[in-house]
């Protein structure tokens, strides 16, 4: 099917293309390739050439006003003209190119067309005292204000500010964790993440959240390190030694924060914010398990809590008198051991099964 803008030449004459403000060009026969403005207006169907503005759309995209008596030389076939009834024109520039537009409003797509702006670029309206605005294709810009409206095109990058780091993003949306990584932040560290858009309340985000950068203004992401449960200065989670995959999966799923820490050659798994059953003086503790280097060949035994636990009933808890220093803090040791009937088995026991023992040991003291 032929393109709407192509047509066969008339057998005994010429064609020109004529459009209104919508820039949809249609062929019009014209038996002269040096017409006047009045002839063009007439060919476009306007009887009174004096109130009609005829604009010649040049190959470079500029619009040239053709007076009714002015003769214009058109190629064969062709010549594109915008013919409208108007009594004035509005001046604008696109990327510095001057255009006189015969109507007070102009759409983004026509600006793009006139300025030859490629689809992979954005079109901006320059503004005084305000951030320049993106002009979308379907949007109309009012040219009626004083002064020459200046439009410019720019590569499509979106700007995102992450904790002071300016990112140029080639896509209009970005996942928070990607943006953080690009800005050089460790996503494994615990962060509170907030999105701040000028003039709006801050909005909490997750690592998986998607930020839409098309909103006006530069989006800013703020990061605040999450506090560890004991109120110490926040720090990155330590992974001084690895555990079994099954352990690490379980810990990640069930606890917000855990660390493996080497402290004077001793190897501790610390689980922060470990919930203890009702009946104790605390609701949450930091739980410590000592994991020897030959684990799981070597067993895990006992467990340690910080701060120390006491029963609300005031009763003493057996075999919890010994204190152990872990990373400079005094943990309470719970001397709880496997029975002979239930020895540690290297091929099936691990952190997960030991946590089950911890849980039942803690529950036992408050089950009356």
């Amino acid at each position, binding site marked *: 099917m032929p393109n709407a803008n192509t047509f066969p030449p008339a057998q005994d004459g010429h064609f020109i293309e004529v459009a209104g403000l919508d820039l949809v060009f249609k062929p019009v026969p014209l038996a002269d390739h040096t017409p006047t403005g009045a002839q063009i207006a007439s060919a476009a169907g306007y009887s009174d050439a004096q109130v009609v503005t005829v604009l010649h759309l040049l190959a470079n995209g500029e619009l040239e006003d053709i007076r009714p008596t002015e003769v214009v030389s058109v190629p064969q076939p062709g010549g594109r003209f915008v013919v409208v009834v108007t009594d004035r024109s509005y001046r604008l520039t696109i990327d510095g190119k001057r255009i006189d537009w015969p109507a007070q409003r102009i759409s983004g797509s026509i600006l793009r067309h006139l300025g030859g702006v490629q689809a992979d670029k954005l079109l901006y309206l320059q503004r005084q005292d305000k951030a320049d605005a993106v002009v979308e294709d379907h949007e109309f810009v009012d040219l009626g204000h004083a002064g020459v409206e200046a439009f410019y095109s720019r590569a499509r990058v979106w700007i995102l500010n992450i904790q002071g780091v300016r990112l140029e993003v080639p896509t209009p949306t970005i996942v928070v964790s990607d943006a953080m990584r690009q800005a050089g932040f460790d996503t494994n560290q615990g962060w509170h993440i907030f999105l701040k858009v000028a003039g709006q309340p801050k909005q909490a985000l997750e690592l998986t959240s998607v930020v839409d950068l098309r909103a006006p203004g530069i989006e800013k992401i703020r990061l605040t390190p999450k506090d560890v449960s004991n109120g110490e200065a926040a720090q990155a989670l330590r992974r001084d030694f690895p555990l079994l995959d099954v352990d690490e999966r379980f810990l990640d799923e069930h606890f917000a924060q855990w660390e493996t820490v080497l402290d*004077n050659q001793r190897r501790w798994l610390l689980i922060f914010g470990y919930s203890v059953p009702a009946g104790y003086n605390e609701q949450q503790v930091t739980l410590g398990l000592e994991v020897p280097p030959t684990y799981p060949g070597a067993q895990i035994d006992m467990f340690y809590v910080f701060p120390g636990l006491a029963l609300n009933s005031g009763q003493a808890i057996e075999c919890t008198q010994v204190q152990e220093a872990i990373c400079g803090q005094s943990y309470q040791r719970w001397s709880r051991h496997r029975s002979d009937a239930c*020895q540690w088995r290297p091929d099936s026991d691990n952190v997960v099964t030991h946590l089950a023992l911890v849980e039942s040991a803690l529950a036992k003291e408050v089950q009356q």
Partner: protein
Amino acid sequence: MNPSTNLTITNADHRKLRDHLFPGDGLEAAAILLCARTPGPRVRLLVKQILLVPHSACKERRSDYLVWPGAAIEEAIDLAEADGLSLVLTHSHPGGLFGFSRHDDRSDLLAVPSLFQALGGLHGTAIMTPDGAVLARLYRQDLSPISVESVMVAGDDLTWHWADRKFSPRPTAFTSEATQELGRLSACVIGVSGTGSLVAEQLARLGFGQVILIDFDKIEPRNLNRIVNSTLADAKAQRSKVVAFAEAVTSYRGEGVAVPVNASISTREAVLCASQADVMFSCVDTLDARQIADLLAASFLIPLFDVGVSIPTRRTTGGSAIADVCGRIDYVHPGGPTLQDRRVYDPASLRAEYLRRTAPDAHREEMQAGYLRGVAEEAPAVIALNMRAASACVMEFIARAYPFRHESNAAYARTQFSLAANEEEFFPVESFPTTTIPQFARGDLEPLLGLPALRAPKSEAIA
């Protein structure tokens, strides 16, 4: 000398394979070996499992010809997929041809490419003759062959089948032929100190082609009474035990025999080096090092000789007295009872040892509270006792590789001697329970030996 490309199979699996491939009807039969691999650079295939192709499922069985079903290969592919195992398609040559026939060559070109399509990796084929000898070959993905120079059958006895047909029948112990065969083998000694230096000295002089020496420690003046080849100059310069020892080996065996690894056996580096050996000697003084040796033996199907000496003391009114002067030699064959099965260590004693090393106060307190078992006070071992035990340990190896005992080697899974009581006791392999351990023929699966502490660094894992 580079140690040979090798396939290792336990004696139990070898027997099962032989029984199936030679059912007594004189016709060919087939099986598929599912093999793990050592991490390299040496290629060692470790038979983890055997899939027997039912005789009735074969379309045609003749004395010199066999047509077996592709469905069996499919089953093996499913089993091999998860752990990236290598498949070795195996059949019998009842006529005794120790070699691949032209027919075998042709059928390999048909069957092997389909294994690569399904699994990638490294796969091959093998034949077995009625005497139990196995000849194997491997292919890379482009079908270029890798010859498998030796097949080790590891059990109470150690047998090597060489592709070049050397050392068949098996050499007699203490002959130059045995020395020549040892020249093709690699031994690893874990711990090169009081007992280890004596074991390594014997192995190097016996003629092993390669002796891998693993120890993290330096020579100190107080070691000079029991480390052979160590000198005053070594102690003054605080030279590493393995570097100094390797230099001595080079002086009487030449370059390339000793491979010093100056690292603890509890490191990834040392475990990777040890995995390359054909046989292993653990001469260590900690339980966690024994556990690593035990797991190495199981994971890489390496026969393990473990030696320990001790001079326990008892308290007397006047001070202390010698309770005994004793030594222990355990031989662990792949798939047999492990050191853990023999209670050389257990999860509780491993933890106790860790605690004693890193937190002596906590260890003492737990002992007093009764949470930990106590151990007898030990007097330092002396070179005379070390030599007795080290000699027994290396003799144990010779007896396994070149059998000379009147009785079966199965009767000597553990030897224990007491010089105080002047007694020597022998424990047959049946006196220990054999538990199936998940590390059996684990090969190069991560984490190494199933221990998270030996896991590949994250960056290496990605590469």
